[in-house]
């Protein structure tokens, strides 16, 4: 956060230099003149600016409580500084490694299993020649994306119920179970990842289909001339054609490795599955919101956010090195 503040402060004069060919003596005067010129734009923008200041920048300032012994009665400024005590308490706690492991593994598994699915799906869709069938499959595959997490988890809970869930009915046919899936830590990641793929593979394929549509048809003709069959064309034309998209999306996903969809975990986990299901986000919610340990929870949240930013910067740097494709 601190780093970013410095960057914006540096950026501003930098951006205004090209405009001032005559080296205006008074920056403030020039600013006032610009404001007068663009007052209508500023008025239009005002609600949005106020929104961002109040609901995004004030909470960033509120992160100070991570370094304080925050007492709501005393306020942010009135509370006592305690340096990194909240952080070290977290690092030393018995939960630290479990939370870190669960957070990383949950998104790593989602990435490993979930990332290739939309790509393979898009490649297969692209091979379908009947337009109606193709359109129908696409439309159906996007549908789960629009179903709320609450309903998806609600369905999971209902379907996996050991009493009357349909999955246990199926297993019963083969003499297995009943298994109480949601109370067994061993099943948590599987359920989280597979339901995530069910919900997002179709929607995720849109961007790859767009990339495939953008490939020059002449490349396919040339490949055919060289005797390439279906697989040859996929390998030598389609895949290289969508590689930049794949890389960009992989970076984006990798950058969000510690940014697990904690809302879904919150709905899906319970004390019986904390062993594999409890992640940093849900821990922050429990300790901060439910137990009112504000300073401590804010510190844990900040730790998570800091890692997110580092990961994103690293991923972007790596990709620029490797492929000259980057986010910025």
């Amino acid at each position, binding site marked *: *956060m601190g780093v*970013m503040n410095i960057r*914006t402060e540096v*950026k*501003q004069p930098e*951006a205004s230099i090209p405009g001032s060919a005559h080296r205006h003596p008074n920056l403030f005067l020039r600013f006032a003149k*610009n404001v007068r*010129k*663009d007052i209508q*734009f*500023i008025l*239009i*923008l005002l*609600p*949005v600016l106020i*929104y*961002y200041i109040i*609901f*995004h*920048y*004030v*909470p960033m300032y*509120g*992160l100070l409580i991570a370094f304080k012994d925050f007492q*709501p009665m005393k306020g942010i400024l009135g509370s006592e500084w305690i340096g990194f005590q909240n952080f070290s308490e977290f690092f030393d706690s018995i939960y630290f490694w479990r939370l870190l492991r669960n957070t990383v593994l949950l998104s790593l598994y989602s990435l490993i299993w979930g990332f290739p699915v939309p790509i393979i*799906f898009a490649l297969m869709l692209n*091979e*379908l020649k009947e337009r109606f*069938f193709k359109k129908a*499959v696409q*439309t*159906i*595959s*996007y*549908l789960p994306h629009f*179903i*709320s*997490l*609450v*309903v998806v988890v*609600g*369905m999971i*809970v*209902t*379907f996996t119920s050991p009493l009357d869930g349909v999955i246990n*009915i199926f297993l019963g046919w083969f003499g297995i179970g009943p298994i109480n899936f949601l109370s067994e830590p061993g099943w948590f990641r599987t359920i989280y990842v597979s339901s995530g793929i069910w919900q997002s593979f179709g*929607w995720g394929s*849109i961007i790859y289909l*767009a990339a495939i549509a953008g490939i020059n048809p002449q490349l396919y003709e040339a490949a055919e001339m060289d005797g390439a*069959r279906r*697989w040859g064309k996929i390998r030598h034309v389609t895949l290289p054609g969508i590689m930049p998209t794949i890389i960009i999306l992989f970076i984006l996903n990798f950058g969000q490795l510690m940014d697990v969809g904690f809302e879904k975990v919150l*709905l899906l986990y319970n004390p019986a599955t904390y062993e594999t299901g409890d992640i940093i*986000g849900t821990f*922050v919610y429990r300790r*901060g*919101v439910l137990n009112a340990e504000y300073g401590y929870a*804010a510190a844990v*949240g900040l730790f*998570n*956010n800091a890692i997110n930013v580092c990961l994103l910067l690293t991923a972007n740097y790596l990709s620029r090195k490797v492929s000259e494709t980057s986010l910025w």
Partner: protein
Amino acid sequence: MRARKSVGERIGDGIIYAVMWVVVAVTLYPFLYVVSMSISDPVYVIQKTIWLLPKGFSLKAYEKVFENPDVWTAYLNTIFYTVAGTAINVVMTMLGAYPLSRKSFFARKQVMIFIVITMFFSGGLIPMFLLVQNLGLYNTRWAILLPGAVSAFLIIVTRTFFQSIPEHLHESAKLDGAGEFSILWRIVAPLSMPIIAVLTLFYAVGQWNSFFPALLYLPDVRLQPLSLYLIKVLIQNSTTMMEDMANQSDRSMYVVQLKYSLIIVAILPILAVYPFLQKYFVKGVMIGSLKE
């Protein structure tokens, strides 16, 4: 010209079609199952003999759901949050995107940075929670409407769209003495119906499906949206809810089926509009993925 397909290619086709049918089945099965359970005769639901198609026919469970005043309160709340929230979202997005799309606006770049930063850094859950309390929004409807009033990502998408509007329209409007606000309202907005449709859809689905802000900021049951009601009934298996719904005599009869009916009631609006609006959603993703 077209050569006959080789055996290998035809096998390939077969595999692809088979996989696609499996994909369709896996995607649709949960929906079909829930529908079947919700409209079957409750006797078969309890006997656990339904696994695909409905057996018998009964809408009794739906009657029970709609007889419940709590469901109505929650449903109306969800409709309110979706309509009011989406209206705020769309207006704010337009207001944010327009000045940023104009090259003549001197602070364009700085404001962009100011907004983009929030996509990467946030205060996180706890400072936000405290802020909502300090502002006096806690346990009011504003706590749902204000904190998520606009999305930075959709501002950028909309800005990109606005930039494609021909410059001479702006110039001639200015010659006629129009101010920036009236240009936005009378010229840019009418030309931006495709993007407004996309924004409305994205925001509305988001609002309809949202549950976390309500979980965080709305302890008062009378203000809670349907999603929180669903959490209590479907996920926490709250028995008091069930007792409210099914009266004593036939509670055991309907208790299972009620859940399935409730799921359908919650997703029906989306299922109903989805086939018609699907292409706009896809269009939205396309616009969003354009790089400047």
